[in-house]
């Protein structure tokens, strides 16, 4: 088992390589929790909660109760891409509450992994998506975490290596996936 770690101020990239009859190749992106920030968010949530109870006691319906703590529980701590060679790719999201959401895409359904540039009204970011046969929408590998491209490139290369089976399929998607990354 080997472990490669890359990190920046917000995200941590971990790579597990399992040998065996079915080799597992797992890529995790972990949100680095700043303890001071977590404490502040909790304090804020607590204040909101107390405030909500106070409002309830005053017989005022508090319908927006402690959204911030809910947000904290709903946000995954780790999102992973598990490449099970010759079988498929499993996307996992581990939540703070212990809940794990998994989705599996069989290898023959995957057309191509693509690094995509996204533009919102306020910012730009990169995302790793899987083009799936017979599906119009793109399959996002990391739905919540938005890691920088330098963390995504090794995962993308691993996915390419896993899904590449040596034949050329003529499809427009093929062209889109040709991202030549050159940082000088």
């Amino acid at each position, binding site marked *: 088992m080997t472990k490669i770690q*890359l990190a920046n101020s917000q995200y941590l990239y971990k790579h597990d390589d399992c040998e065996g009859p079915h080799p597992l190749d797992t890529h995790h992106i972990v949100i680095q929790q700043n303890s001071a920030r977590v404490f502040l968010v909790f304090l804020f949530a607590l204040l909101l909660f107390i405030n909500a109870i106070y409002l309830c006691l005053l017989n005022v319906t508090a319908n927006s109760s402690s959204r911030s703590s809910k947000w904290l529980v709903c946000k995954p701590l780790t999102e992973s891409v598990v490449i099970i060679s010759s079988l498929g790719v499993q996307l996992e999201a581990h939540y703070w509450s212990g809940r794990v959401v998994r989705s599996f895409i069989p290898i023959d359904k995957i057309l191509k992994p693509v690094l995509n540039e996204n533009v919102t*009204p306020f910012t730009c970011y990169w995302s790793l998506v899987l083009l799936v046969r017979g599906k119009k929408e793109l399959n996002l590998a990391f739905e919540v975490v938005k890691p920088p491209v330098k963390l995504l*490139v090794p995962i993308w290369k691993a996915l390419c290596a896993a899904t590449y089976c040596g034949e050329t399929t003529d499809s427009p998607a093929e062209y889109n996936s040709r*991202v030549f*990354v050159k*940082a000088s």
Partner: protein
Amino acid sequence: MGDPKRHRILMVSDFFYPKFGGVENHIYYLSQCLLKLGHKVVVMTHAYGNRSGVRYMTGGLKVYYVPWKPFLMQNTLPTFYGTLPIIRTILIREQISLVHGHQAFSTLCHEALMHARTMGYKVVFTDHSLYGFADVGSIHMNKVLQFTLADVSQAICVSHTSKENTVLRSGLPPEKVYVIPNAVDTAMFKPTAERPSGNEIVIVVISRLVYRKGADLLVEVIPEVCRMYPNIYFKVRFIVGGDGPKRVRLEEMREKHSLQDRVEMLGAVPHARVRSVLISGHIFLNSSLTEAFCIAILEAASCGLLTVSTRVLPDDMIVLAEPDPTDMVQAIKKAMSILPMIDPQDMHNRKLYDWHDVAKRTEIVYDRALKCANQNLLERLSRYLACGAWAGKLFCLVMIIDFLLWRLLQLWKPAEDIEVVPDIVLSHDEDREISQDFQVFNKDHSLR
């Protein structure tokens, strides 16, 4: 990056493909020629329908379609500060050295230039149109223009008339304004091998049928010309391409004078089909009342048509007329008389306006803009203050808030956190051929 002479330019305008028009064409052709000269060009515009995000065009021209909704005449809602984060992100991640805004109508362009100046970038502005001075819209527009141009490094106008107009409107020192005309894609607009012959002369009109383009003049000119040349010796026919609010008037005229067989109305003509319409005619008629720079005339001349219009071409390629029906009829008459002496192929070969030439001249303006001295906030504020008694103070306030917001953004999202986009190298043969090896030249992909 390595070559200090190489510019990294961000073109900003609300007007870009898939919408079609003079400004859109200008940005596209200029960008293509600048790319060929070895510069890096990125275009920023707002999203058109479901076209948003990043697109690549021919030659690796990168286009950002920023998802801000247009609200009026393809313009985004003026938000003043709303676009600051995305413009800052793009400027940093594409390592832009110079911002080039197009068209005074575009709010996105004004905002981008303002933010770029706040962030200390050099900016160049190109004005493509003429404006009045008297009506409410123009007065407002001129104030906005004055605000933007108070601080640009260099400005470009498309003709001498346009320069005069811009200098008067914005109070910009004339030595800062350059004149670089538009050009025409001569490879696209070629005359046919043999001329449409027979005993008929076809007069082509292609323009939007609006007041400014002189559609009302056409209503008077067409019946007069038809009356002057009855179908006895040779036939005179009109082909009118274009759509607009004045189309109804033209159709009414056609009914009234029963000219259905001599005036053909094509409706809107897509740009790709303009050549096929042009080559079916002999004379191109342009009836615009005002025009900063009429690309349509150039396209017609490149197709070898004699043009009746205002002064932008040498005298032997054009017959000039006042914007007055009787004078225009006289001009058409003159054009008919010199028509036998015209050789379309010869006219095409003269190539007076070339995009490569435009790009080279624009490059010089970029060089000069980059040589301009850096100014601090106080020096720049004093320039705004000179814009007017009230407006000056207002402009200063807007700039100070912009500056503070920029500083705040720097704290909230430091420039180091914004990733630089790697340059994508696409050679022409790679465009076609699809290789399976995913070459990733990433020097720091193995960093710990």
